């Protein structure tokens, strides 16, 4: 077999036409790559540039080296896997080691630039009255009057001393004077303007009536990596993502920086985070176990009933019971959210009519969990029913005939023949179903959004949050700001857990063995 495939590969290599096509294809690809590379260099996207060049190198190797033939088949799928799964994983690992989040969003350079653009004004600084002019292109010009009467022209970021009949002012004929209300409207634009007057001082707008001399508040010393407050002389050094003074005072905003394993440590030592995290983790495991147990129990029970050759209408029952599986889960979850609605939902209407009481389905922690399990049972039992039916049908009848001869009861047949043989084929699927439900974001998010919230938690955590929805809210939805660093750390923990389960599932069930042993 192997040698035949080798011969096949040789014949590929032998064909002149395929060689020419291959060469042409590679040439076109490389031209596109080089063009893209130039573009990326001009945009300074070096990470993507590196990925692109690496990808192009691999493609060339695979098509030029003789041993690369099988890899041609793997290239397309592998390319997208690396770009859209592996690269995000690497990025997540990096972010988990940083303090990226609200308050530490910008890079250090951006934060320094922000501080260097901060100006302060002396309380007794003199005011410069001003007139602002604008031309058709939106360019601005200013005439300032110092308290001592000196006239200054401010234009294109320079200021000059002028007199009223100065020829320098002739260009203003093309400009129109801005009214007070225009000044108010343009406050943001105007306050960004500063005219340098030496010594780090700038003439900047104070209010709509006047400008004044401002002094730079901070200056950054690149050699010592310090930020100095020019007013007070206090020196701030970078520490843990903030510029920090000797007495521990921090300047905000902070910057994004690598902080090592702090995020992981926080999860296990910071009590306000550990409590909710442990609670969420426990419920995640309970949820996954409950989901598998309930869907499997119902699915298996129905499969046994439906596998009965003496049962009438079994085909009809089967096709109808499968229906929930054919409806997209996000639609089902939103529908059930309506059914569970405490005030107007039909479930409470029925309860009201029959036992004259209603249940706070989505408000009470316990009932919210029950609602989730019911919804997931509805979504999941058809799947379990299908796979159990498949497995039951593959158990030969000889086994049962032999058992009957030996005098085994129905229960004994079920316990000692059906269950063990069923488990051989179904157990790996149950494990896979466990890890699927461990990360079953959409059901939780669409039905309860993790609510009701756990009171007093520092991170946004709810009673029905599972790890993945907790992390999602940590990263994207918190009202108190987002924490990408911490969220990435939890993401990696989720990955580790489900990865381990998958590893053992495939390892011990021999799923990776080749089905066809003669290959």
């Amino acid at each position, binding site marked *: *077999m*192997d040698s035949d*495939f080798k011969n*096949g*590969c040789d*014949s*590929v290599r032998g064909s002149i036409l395929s060689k020419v096509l291959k060469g042409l294809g590679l040439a076109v690809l490389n031209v596109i790559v080089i063009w893209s590379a130039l573009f*990326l260099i001009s945009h300074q*996207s070096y990470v*993507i540039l590196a990925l692109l060049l690496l990808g192009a190198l691999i493609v060339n190797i695979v098509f030029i080296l003789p041993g690369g*033939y*099988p890899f041609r*088949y*793997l290239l*397309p*799928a*592998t390319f997208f*896997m690396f770009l*859209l*799964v592996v690269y*995000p994983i690497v990025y997540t690992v990096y972010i988990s080691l940083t303090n990226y989040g609200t308050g530490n969003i910008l890079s250090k350079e951006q934060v320094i630039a922000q501080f260097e653009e901060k100006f302060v004004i002396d309380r007794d600084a003199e005011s410069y009255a001003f007139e602002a002019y604008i031309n058709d292109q939106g360019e601005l010009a200013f005439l300032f009057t110092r308290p001592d009467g000196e006239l200054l022209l401010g234009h294109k970021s320079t200021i000059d001393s002028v007199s009223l009949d100065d020829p320098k002012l002739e260009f203003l004929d093309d400009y129109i004077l801005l009214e007070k209300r225009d000044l108010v409207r343009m406050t943001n634009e105007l306050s960004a303007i500063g005219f340098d007057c030496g010594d780090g001082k700038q003439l900047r707008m104070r209010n709509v009536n006047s400008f004044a001399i401002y002094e730079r508040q901070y200056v950054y010393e690149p050699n010592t990596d310090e930020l100095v407050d020019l007013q007070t002389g206090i020196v701030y050094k970078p520490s843990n993502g903030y510029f920090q003074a000797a007495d521990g005072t921090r300047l905000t905003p902070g910057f994004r920086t690598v902080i090592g394993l702090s995020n992981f440590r926080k999860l296990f030592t910071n009590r306000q985070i550990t409590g909710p995290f442990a609670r969420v983790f426990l419920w995640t495991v309970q949820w996954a176990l409950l989901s598998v147990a309930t869907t499997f129990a119902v699915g298996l029970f*129905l499969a046994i*009933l439906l596998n*009965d050759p*003496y*049962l009438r209408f079994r085909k009809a*029952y089967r096709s*109808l019971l499968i*229906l929930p*599986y054919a*409806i*997209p*889960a*996000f639609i089902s979850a939103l*529908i059930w959210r*309506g059914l569970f609605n405490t005030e107007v*939902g*039909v479930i409470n209407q029925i309860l009201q009519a029959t036992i004259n009481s209603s249940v706070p389905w989505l408000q009470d922690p316990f009932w919210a969990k029950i609602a989730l399990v019911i919804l997931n049972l*509805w979504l999941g039992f058809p*799947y379990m029913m*299908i796979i159990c*039916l*498949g*497995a039951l049908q593959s158990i030969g009848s000889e086994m049962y005939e032999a058992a009957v001869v030996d005098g085994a009861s129905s229960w004994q*047949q079920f316990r000692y*023949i059906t269950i063990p043989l069923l488990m051989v084929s179904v157990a790996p699927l149950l494990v896979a179903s466990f890890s699927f439900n461990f990360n079953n974001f*959409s059901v939780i998010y669409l039905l309860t959004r993790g609510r009701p919230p756990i009171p007093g938690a520092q991170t946004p955590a709810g009673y029905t949050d599972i790890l*993945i929805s907790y*992390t999602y809210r940590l*990263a994207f939805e918190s009202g108190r700001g987002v924490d990408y660093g911490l969220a990435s750390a939890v993401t990696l923990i*989720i*990955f580790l857990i*489900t990865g381990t389960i*998958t*590893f053992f599932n495939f390892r011990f069930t021999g*799923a*990776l063995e080749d*089905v*066809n042993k003669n*290959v």
Partner: protein
Amino acid sequence: MYRRHTFFGALWRHGILLVFLVFALFPIFWVISASFNPANTLVGQSLIPKVVSLDNYRELFTNQQHPIALWIKNSVIVSLITSALVVTMTSLAAYAFSRFRFKGRRTGLFISLLVQVFPQMLAAVAVYLLILNIGKLFPALGINTHAGLIMVYLGGAMGVNAWLMKGYFDTIPTSLEESAMIDGATPFQAFYMIILPLARPILAVVFLLQFIGTYSEFILASVLITSSSKYTLAVGLQLFIHDQYANRWGVFAAASVLGALPIVILFMFLQKYLVSGLTHGAVKG
């Protein structure tokens, strides 16, 4: 293990099955009934509507602010293209894993399985920045394009899909390809003309699972698609209903019925392949 039923034996069996039928079908009937009920509210709805109208369905096509029919169309297009491309790429990869012997074959298959367990949606920031930058290079693949979104979904072409397909390819005897190659066919021709037609059931299963998965995905879609006219149904529908069950229930029900239809139809057509495919080890995604 099974015996002919007594009267009571048949009674309790059908009794139990009917209970589960009610459980399985009640929400579906309830929503279908609501979709034809012009009242458009959860309050006081009855199982059989007193007045039947198509107002709610008309609303799906005429409401400018919530173009739900358009969202369904977007979802179908994105899912169709994604699934077709995934099936193509996955079958190529699975063929290599099944038929060629090369260094790193088992490790490669295993790593691709492991990597797919990573919750891609939680790395939405990385994916967003990546698509943003790719969009600078190729605007057609950038943020707020369906092509960019489809590209993100193609990351799933490896993993469980490839493993499922490889398992199926392994069960196809190699003798057919061998004789084709003796007649001068290349491995690719053998793959294309012999393996693919024989593997139709598993192609159908992977297509169906990928279609359902793509159709239902809403986190990455909501991050990458920013304009309402390009939403997929999974993004748009939950924004539409967002806790307004009391006054949007009817239109929502109509949207649910119409939105579930593409999957139900696909499901009916491919159902016969599903049992064998699922027992090979897939979980609804």
